């Protein structure tokens, strides 16, 4: 009885030490980079209402890219800052009247490890001028996500 139990216990202890997890698990997040291109938008970019906002970034992943999302919202209340955004000069705080809200999801063609994102976003004529945040979110097929946020300014 005694020995039997010890045997079982030892067996459990042994199997606890023999994890065969050498499968290929994707442990790498996708990346948003400026490699080989002139990236846009970058921090402190100033644009006019009615202009086209060029979006140029390079997405890369070790396995397969997923999707991406672009979101633009106002920073009239100075609610966030990033390391680099601190250097951009911000307008005075103000109340939003008709702020620009942009939130679009984009597909990336299947089986891509590298993708040159190239979009032209029209800036509406009727929006409030001021400081905005431009946020890029990128996933890979596994579900890892990378985020990049830059500060831009829209003027008349």
């Amino acid at each position, binding site marked *: 009885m005694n020995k039997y139990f010890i045997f079982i216990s030892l067996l*459990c*202890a042994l199997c606890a030490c023999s994890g065969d997890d050498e499968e290929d698990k994707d442990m790498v997040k996708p990346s948003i980079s400026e490699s080989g291109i002139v990236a846009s938008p970058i921090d402190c970019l100033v644009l006019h209402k009615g202009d086209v906002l060029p979006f140029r970034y390079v997405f890369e992943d070790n396995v397969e890219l997923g999707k991406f999302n672009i979101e633009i919202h106002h920073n009239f209340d*100075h609610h966030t800052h990033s390391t680099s955004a601190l250097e951009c000069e911000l307008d005075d705080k103000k109340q939003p009247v008709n702020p620009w809200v942009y939130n679009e999801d984009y597909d990336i063609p299947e089986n891509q490890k590298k993708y040159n994102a190239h979009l032209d976003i029209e800036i509406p004529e009727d929006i409030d001028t001021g400081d905005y945040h431009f946020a890029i979110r990128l996933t890979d097929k596994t*579900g890892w996500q990378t985020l990049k946020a830059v500060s831009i300014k829209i003027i008349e």
Partner: protein
Amino acid sequence: MIIPLLAAALFSCAEPDSAVRLDDVIVVGNATRDFQMKSSQTALQINRDYIDNNFSGSLMQTLEGIPGVKAMSIGSGQSKPIIRGLGFNRMAVTENGIKHEGQQWGDDHGLEIDQFNVDRIELIKGPATLKYGSDAIGGVLNLYNNFIPSVPFEGSLNLFGRSNNEQLGVSAKIGGRKGRVFYRANITLLDYADYKVPTDSIQYYSYYIRLKDKRLRNTAGLENDGSVMLGYMEHRFQSYLRISDSYSKSGFFANAHGLEVRLSDIDYDHSCRDIDLPYQSVNHFKILNHTTWYNDHMSVVADLAFQNNLRKELSEPVSHGYMPIPDGSLERCFDKSTYTMNLGTSISLTEHNELQFGVNTEYQDNNRKGWGFIIPDFETMSWGAYVYDRYEPHKNLQLNAGARFDAARTHIHSYYDWYETPLSETESVFLQRSAELKRRFTSVTWSAGASYNKNNWILKANIGKAFRMPIPKELGVNGVNYHIFRYERGNAELNPEESYQLDASVIFSNKKLYIQFDPYLNHFPNYIYLSPTADYVEGLQLYHYTQAKVLRYGFEAQLNYKIDTKLELELKGEYLYAEQQSGEKKGYTLPFSVPWSVDAGLKYSFVCKGDGFVGLNAHIVGKQDEIVPPEQPTPGYWTLNLTAGKQFMLHKNTLRVALHADNLLNKRYYDHTSYYRLIDVPEPGRNISMMIGLQF
């Protein structure tokens, strides 16, 4: 100041001339053996002495010294229990036999029970749904605060403090028994400031947050608890009514709550003790009646309880996407009422055979409010019936087996956004976030095992099946989780989660040595898992609920060796491995996987006008590379901790001083299972907790 005082108290005494008695230092005594032989499950009994001596701020942090138990820190010095890596709705907490029903699913909800009013704790590691119903997959934490006073009047007063978040608290208890009537009452008041971390700044995504005085902004809080109990007892009959209320209010870390890292006009650094937005308040009210009737061959126990959990989360109103700036700061409110009725009978069929059977019924009603949506309104009715037999064919051998049937019916209500979302230039709609849904669930669970003891050995083995009903969040959620920056979608098709587990326990003890080894093997055919996808919804990454096969195994081990009458060595450790074996994340582990850990401690006990001890402990935690998106690997670390306690006899009263110093070297480290790990907040730095208690 505290340390010299305590040192003076410890060393001012000469060698004791009285006979050395260290009985309570020996972990296993006859009582422990009897307890261990009662069931084949891996179980542990923790008494008030252990809780007082190891007091470290919160009940769950105090229990963290037990292998296999973790306190998942949720900020504000609050924490929620994890047994063998399973927390939330995969373990159950009971108070006096009644399952505690708060909002267990939440990442930032603590345990709404007065931790200073616990007489004893019974911890079951492993499947225990047989007696406790849904949820008790990882284990059960049974808290008892129903000791019946034995004298006409007794009481205690405890004062405690904690240096890291400048917490101050007081807890008072009185009780008494006169003839057939007894009573108890208690009150606990706690207040704490923002807690400190050993860093000047936190970097999250590309955001860089500076901290003032190394304090985590707005994590201050308070807690007020109270209870009264009135009982009646006579020969073979006993009944009591207990009413309790627990209220807490605590701030959320101001810079990383909500959709994005935010700065605010609120001057958080003005005071470290005030609670600004965002914050949460939780009120848990409970009324319960426990009645026991027994004769020589039979006992009947009846429990009736009502509990209401009212939880509010308040934050600064902000617009997001098409949601305009909402009115007021009430982001979410959950109002959940639970009615419980348990009836259990135990019959001694023969001197060596005991049969138990019973029924549990529970009705839950949850209502939501606020501008943020995460879980829909729902009502759930569930009941279960069990039968369990314990047989002792030999004085050293105990066999037990049981089976249970459960059925539940849940009704989830539909929910529509309070604002319109444009579909085209001319058309806009109130989006539906939750669909009307009615589901019925049934489940059959069972358990069987044996315990055997001979000489200095106790051997136990148990095999069992456990389950839990999917919760309405898993079935019906469809919205932005403002806490974790993600969009969550439920799955109305989910089946009850089932788990099969094999447990064993080997205990050896003699006068000098105590060894315990508890391995387990656990298989889930359909673990309910919130899986991150590559998709976006409303600008946030979509996470959806799926079910996957999961294999988990691990063990806990403990060794205590009494070097001499005063010096005791303690080694304990735990290891856990988990792997998803099917589904989208095949090959990955489960979220918040507990890394291996080892504790090595030395304890010096002495007697000098009352018992006393000083202990030094090294807590070593391995790195955790087994992660699943969106987690990051967490490096290993070690901390040095000191515990000391001393009792003083003052006439007929006992004065007890307990000191706990955590992270003496003020190391900066991350806890893989902490809620704030995802936003890169390190664990608290050096912390000294102290408790002074007077029993009269």
